[in-house]
Structures are given as structure tokens and as C-alpha cells.
């Protein structure tokens, strides 16, 4: 391992990411929700109330965040995007309508990206440097395409607690962990049911305790903590306190590097040019390509 894993002798890195998908994410996940206004309003709450509440919390603790929007949201919620942009946060792209890339071929995935990116450029005057596949995957050949389009980093795959390179493009992955996402703990709708088993909403106190323990460990081991939030889930009056308490615990450490995805990707690329041998992405590609 590198002696200086993070800049300025920081012990760990924290990337706060927000999926601002309005009602598009849930419409991809739960097609049966189409036309059900009450249920859709659960997710639309994010744009109406959650975004500003998250912006306030990030501002209070003076931390940057990396937001992902599908291009359609840049068209429908231009003012929200301008407020996010004006607050100094990064804005990445998650397709045009939070498409499920597992259901699209490579050409359709490229089209979703290009349409989304064009909408973002039209709304903010700038394209994204970061990309998130809404459901996590993409077809072989998509990473080099992202690279061609000027994308520097992705936060879609898993398998590591440090950044890594995709095998087929110098694209940096900032890997996810379900336990660092708010959706598995809190997303809820009665009917159509979300989650599908109608699980109870988790205890706020216990989730905060889990996240603090997760963060303590990422910090202890010097890792890259990628939090994944949603405005409609964490940006509520009752749950924003969980985020505030977590950010306060992180700030108390003093040696945490709060950075955007683009900053971490740039740093990682400046420090090394390849993964350690045996990395999951290389094993995956070795077997995948042998299948053809």
C-alpha cells in the first residue's frame, strides 16, 4: 500500500453521493407504480423538500457531495439543479430516466447516456464527469465509451473499499456497499409494496449506530467511504438528523478527506496506474471474455 493513500495525510476519504432521481428511479424498479399518484408522491417528495434539506445539512458541515441525476430531472427540475450547482457540489449523470441497463443492449445504453448528458448540459451548461448505472451494470464496451465521452469516474460496481480501475478503460470506480445506502434501510411504500416483502422501516437509532460503526471501520482501515443517499429518504424532517449526527461524528475526526467523486478519481489516478493483481474486475473479465 501507498504510504500516502489520501491527500494531506488524511486517514480516510468520504464521498457523499445523492441519487436525485425524482420518481424515475422507482418507476424503473416498480413498473406497477405507474399512474398511482399517492405512491409516486412518496418519491416526488425528494424534489419538493428533500433536496433543500440535504443541501442545508451539507452546507452546515461544509462538505461537498456528488449528486447523480437522470437527464430528465435536469429538464424538469432545473432550479433544483442550479441550487445544487451553486452550492459547489458535483453533478453526475445516471442515464436519461434511470434506465435499467440490464434490459438494454450496448447501443441503447449509449443512447440513454448521451440523451441524459445532453439534458444536463442544456440545464447547467456543463456535462458530467461522473456516471452511475442506476441498477449497477453495463454491457461490455460501455466503460471505454464513457471514457470517450469525458467521464472520469463511475460509482456503480462493488467488490472493493478503495477506488479501482475498470479493466478496459482508465475509468475510476468508486465502489458501493449496500450497508452504506439509505434505501435498503428506509425505502417504504404500502402498495405497490416497497420493499417487495413489506419489511418494517428500520430503527433510526440503530441505522445511525450501524453507519457510525461502518464509518469508524473505514476510517480505521484508511478506506474510501461512499455513502449513497436519496433526497426523498434521508432528506425528511425525521431522518435528516441521522445524516447530521453522522457528519458530526466524521467531522470530529479531523483527518477525513471529504471530497467529490471527481476529486477522488483524479487523486487515485495521480497515485497509481493499475490495480493490484487478482482484482475482482480482472478475474471477472478473464472469465467473461473466455465465454465468447
Amino acid at each position: 500500500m501507498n504510504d500516502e493513500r489520501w491527500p494531506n495525510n488524511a486517514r480516510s476519504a468520504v464521498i457523499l453521493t445523492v441519487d436525485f432521481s425524482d420518481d424515475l428511479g422507482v418507476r424503473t424498479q416498480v413498473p406497477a407504480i405507474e399512474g398511482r399518484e399517492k405512491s409516486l408522491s412518496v418519491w416526488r417528495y425528494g424534489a419538493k423538500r428533500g433536496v433543500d434539506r440535504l443541501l442545508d445539512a451539507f452546507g452546515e458541515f461544509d462538505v461537498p457531495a456528488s449528486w447523480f441525476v437522470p437527464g430528465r430531472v435536469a429538464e424538469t427540475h432545473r432550479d433544483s439543479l442550479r441550487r445544487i450547482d451553486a452550492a459547489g457540489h458535483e453533478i453526475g449523470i445516471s442515464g436519461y430516466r434511470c434506465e435499467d441497463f440490464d434490459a438494454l443492449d450496448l447501443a441503447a445504453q449509449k443512447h440513454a447516456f448521451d440523451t441524459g448528458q445532453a439534458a444536463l448540459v442544456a440545464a447547467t451548461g456543463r456535462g458530467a464527469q461522473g456516471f452511475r448505472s442506476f441498477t449497477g451494470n453495463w454491457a461490455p464496451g460501455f466503460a471505454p465509451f464513457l471514457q470517450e465521452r469525458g467521464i472520469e469516474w463511475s460509482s456503480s460496481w462493488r467488490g472493493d473499499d478503495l477506488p479501482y480501475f475498470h479493466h478496459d478503460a482508465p475509468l475510476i470506480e468508486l465502489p458501493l456497499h449496500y450497508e452504506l445506502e439509505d434505501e435498503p434501510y428506509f425505502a417504504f411504500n404500502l402498495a405497490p409494496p416497497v420493499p417487495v416483502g413489506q419489511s418494517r422501516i428500520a430503527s433510526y437509532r440503530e441505522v445511525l449506530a450501524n453507519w457510525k460503526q461502518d464509518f469508524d471501520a473505514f476510517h480505521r482501515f484508511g478506506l474510501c467511504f461512499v455513502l449513497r443517499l436519496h433526497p426523498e429518504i434521508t432528506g425528511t424532517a425525521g431522518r435528516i438528523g441521522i445524516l447530521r449526527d453522522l457528519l458530526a461524528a466524521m467531522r470530529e475526526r479531523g483527518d477525513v478527506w471529504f471530497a467529490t467523486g471527481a476529486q477522488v478519481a483524479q487523486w487515485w489516478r495521480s497515485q497509481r496506474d493499475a490495480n493490484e493483481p487478482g482484482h475482482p474486475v480482472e478475474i471477472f473479465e478473464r472469465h467473461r471474455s473466455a465465454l465468447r
Partner: protein
Amino acid sequence: MRAIEAARPHWPEGRRSCVALAFDLDGPTGGAMLDGSIWRNPSYFTLGAYGPWRALGRILDVLAEHSVPATFFIPAWVIENWPAQCRAIVEHGHEVAYHGYMHEAFWTLSPDEQRDVMARSMRLFDRHLGVRPVGFRTPSGDWSVETMRILPEFGVCYSSSMRGDDRPYLLDAASGLIEIPARWELDDYASLAYQRNPDFPAGLDRIASYETTLDNWCREFDGSHHDGLAMTTLFHPKVSGKPGRIALLEEFVGHMRAARGVWFAKCSEVASWWTASGQGTTT
């Protein structure tokens, strides 16, 4: 004397109870690899690969710190793809044992298919680790009626596949095959595992509180220790070796370490003791 007390096992050197910590190092093997869908699902592949790639090393550190032995049940595909990581298990003095090639569901395989999986696994354990395992844990828990007779053909002396007891027992008088049963309560999937596409839990139930999970685990140990039983675990590095959960393992092992009279053993030692002490005569 009450029945539970009367059936209390006895352990080496008059120890009160036995703990055989065990980890299933599944990596990305399992149903999605067996049906090939994982090769279109890098998000899921990488989720599983985290186990051998990152979590295993931290677990080995915890075990070394507390000087406790463990048994790792490993699908041979994982050994083939991360041989250096798996060699570290052996170098740390832990036991490695069979767990299928790609985590096959043995109850769906014909006897000859089961033999193929065992033979292939045996070659890979030998080639990469120089080890001839004596233990077996059925991937997914269930086996077919023939499995019990197939295992001894490959030098297997014990299984840790069943759930129906809290003490070892004799599975097959002809071969002397011993069972070291586990319990769902000590499977980290029951509390902490979570994934989408494929979904687990099937209804996408929540990840449990770490604090209450640890409390459950400690109570499981306390009860097992009180009754003088053999406790093993179904922990998965990709689940309980995540950074935030390493502290759970540390506290759990610390809790057991603080108790007096615990015999920490590898599963093969438990099986040998059970037979040698004359307790392995009843099923």
C-alpha cells in the same frame, strides 16, 4: 438428572464447551455462476468477490490477534482464482475444507455429478494449497440421500451441514462420518446479508442492527457454553468481513475468549475428539 444435562458432551481437558468458528468463503460462486448469469452481472460478481479479495485478510488478522483457530469451507473455484489469498488461510494454521466447486446444490446433483465436483475440488485443493481436506459443508445446506456415502470415498471424515442438533453426532456407522451441526442463528445471512438482483432477502428485508446482532450472537454462545455444547458458525467473509462488521467479530471473539473453559478448535479436531472419546457411537 434432567435430560439436557444428562446428554451433556464432554470435551478435552475437562473444558466446558466447544467453539469451532467457521467461515464459508463463497466469493462470487453460487446459483448465478452455475447458470452463467453472473457474467452479465458485474455488480453482483464484485459483491461476492469482496470476500476473498478484501474481507478475508481482515478476518485472518482478527483470528491471529485472538489466537483462535477456524475452519474455512471454500468452493474450489475460489481457490483456483485467488490462490494466494487461500494459501494465507493455511499459512495462518487454519483448516480448509470442501464446499463444492461453484457452490453446487448437492441435493440436485446425481451421485456421479457429486463425485465429479468432489474429485475436481480435491485436485484443486491439492494443486494450490497442498492440502487433502477431511471436512465438508454442503453448499446451500441440503444434500441428497447418497451424499453421505460419497463423502468418505474422498477422505471426508466429517460434515458440517445440518441444523438439527447442538452437539456433534454420528451420521453413518459404516464410515464413521461425523456431523458437526450449525444453526441459522449463527449464520450472518440471517441478519446482515443484503443484495439486489438477485435479491436477498427475497422480500428485501432490512439489514439488522449490528448491536442487536452481536447481542444475539453472544447470547447464542452463552447458552451453548452454559449447556456445554459444540458451537460452530456460518459466517461469510463477504458479509461479516465488511469493514464495519469486523468490530462485531472482534467483540464476539473477545466475549467468548473471556469465558472460562472454552475449547476453541478446528472442525476436524472436534470430529476426531468426538470419535476418539467414544461419543461418536450414537446418531
